[in-house]
């Protein structure tokens, strides 16, 4: 197997650039937070975000001024707080105005599915009669030639790059996901560059033991980055649960522009890399988050790094 491993710094430097289009893998759980931090540290601008639903990583990157356009269904924090940063960007142009092309979760996924199938569009019975169509000229409503009446078409999406965080991958990028999978199977085929970040790199022989769990094959993958706790403060099934107090800190800081800039300075700009970030969060705290998850969900024979060995 080819060895595609590299550092996060190298992967972000090589596979993102000013003006690129970017997909963020998974949804709420397994969203790549460490990747968002590194993209911000490298100062990327004018990115077009193409995704279904995204929470904390997008809010961070909106605050840092990374995006000029978003094509998505939902940009917000969720139950623990509102999206102060996306609101400031769209309502006040701070730090920059962001144009949003609206979709729904299903149709954002269908765009990636079309991209993954090499097709120009896919039809759907969602969106009909809604103002998502009114405000998105790229969604077309046609009369079904086979007679079912009106049907909406959504354009394929083939973003330049996606970062998808998974529980385990081999060094070539054959990766296995536990728990819900979001739209990762299609995103990984739709995007031109697929960067896998993972809790653990395992020997290919481990992957071969449960091939049904392999969601993404190495031929779709450009690079692999081993990144334990790469989604903190979000969760990873079988690995660690959400750190809501940490998220509250970010949300509270986000109430004001000065507050969020101070937060970014402390947790992103002044932090060298992901290892230093984890030290700053605290290894004891991470072990407790791991315990909260693993008391409820263990991945059979998958996570070889136990609490004691951390």
């Amino acid at each position: 197997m080819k060895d595609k491993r590299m550092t996060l710094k190298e992967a972000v430097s090589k596979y993102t650039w000013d003006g690129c289009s970017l997909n963020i893998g998974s949804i709420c759980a397994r969203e790549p937070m460490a990747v968002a931090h590194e993209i911000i540290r490298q100062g990327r601008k004018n990115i077009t975000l193409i995704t279904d639903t995204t929470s904390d990583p997008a809010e961070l990157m909106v605050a840092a001024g990374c995006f000029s356009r978003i094509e998505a269904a939902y940009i917000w924090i969720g139950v623990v707080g509102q999206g102060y940063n996306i609101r400031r960007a769209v309502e006040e142009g701070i730090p920059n105005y962001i144009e949003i092309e609206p979709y729904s979760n299903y149709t954002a996924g269908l765009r990636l599915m079309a991209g993954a199938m090499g097709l120009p569009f896919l039809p759907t019975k969602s969106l009909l009669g809604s103002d998502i169509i009114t405000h998105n000229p790229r969604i077309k409503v046609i009369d079904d030639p086979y007679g079912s009446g009106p049907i909406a078409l959504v354009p394929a999406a083939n973003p330049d790059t996606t970062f998808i965080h998974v529980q385990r991958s081999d060094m070539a990028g054959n990766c296995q996901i536990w728990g819900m999978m979001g739209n990762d199977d299609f995103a990984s085929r739709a995007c031109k560059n697929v960067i896998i970040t993972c809790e653990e790199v395992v020997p290919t022989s481990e992957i071969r033991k449960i091939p049904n769990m392999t969601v993404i094959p190495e031929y779709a993958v450009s690079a692999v980055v081993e990144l334990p706790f790469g989604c903190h403060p979000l969760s990873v099934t079988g690995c660690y649960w959400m750190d809501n107090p940490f998220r509250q800190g970010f949300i509270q800081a986000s109430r004001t522009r000065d507050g969020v800039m101070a937060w970014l300075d402390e947790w992103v700009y002044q932090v060298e890399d992901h290892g230093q970030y984890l030290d700053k969060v605290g290894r004891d705290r991470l072990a407790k988050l791991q315990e909260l998850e693993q008391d409820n969900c263990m991945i059979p024979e998958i996570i070889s790094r136990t609490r004691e060995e951390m």
Partner: protein
Amino acid sequence: MKKYAENYSISEMMAAVCSLQLSNDDVAFVGVGIPLMAGAVAAATHAPEVTIVYEGGGVGARSRRMPWTISDTPTTDNALVASTMNRIFSDQQRGYITVGIIGGAEIDKFGNLNTTAIFGKGGSYDHPQVRLPGSGGANDIASSCQRTVIVMRLQKGKFVNKIDFITSPGFLSGPGAREKAGLLGGGPSAVVTDRGLFKFDAETKEMYLDAIYPGMTVEQIKEYIDWDLKVSPHLYEMEPPTEEQIEVMHTLDPMGTVLGSKSLKGGIQPFDVYYEALKKSYQSRTLSL
């Protein structure tokens, strides 16, 4: 014998009323917030066989913990299926999902919902007064689910004649409009608010007041609604939540993250308090698998 709770919050009443919209036969799609709690309460009380479906890909989870989002890790604890988002929504478009529970920021009398943007005076989609999260999966649920249940608080200026942006279709402009637009699902069946329960007239498709909560009056409710609200001739007062329902909610949501928004009002929670509360919460629950 049913034992009614003596002390409960309005959010808890909403979650209880909402949970009663679910039965053992339902395959139910639940959204963020009160809908997630309603699904969990139904499964723990009167509808143990209900199949809860989450957008991220989880089907039929049996979890000791409360999911905070539609794709958080508890959504696949002891689940029947851990699948993809696209698969779940395709199953819905195919017709398998019997009910979806969604929220909204603005609603009109035909049950059309806005969760995209409040334009405000002189504002527009591109330059709104208030930007909201967007559809998420709500448009898909409202489009293709067999029926939808809407959860919204009664607030001035939210139950309006014309919403700024139809994110999720109700009955659109009235009778026949969903069919003409090409929509597959049956449309809204109920609106659960903090003061009463609303339903939709089978002929006119207009929302009417079906039941009020203990201590509320029709006049109080009408004050919040911009159109001339019709009231059911069989209007009744709803039962308060039971002790059993409230106990489930308190166990699953010990910090009021879902039902109280206490997490932000009280400042940033100390991590150890959070850790201990969650641990105690799930350790106190037993599951039948």
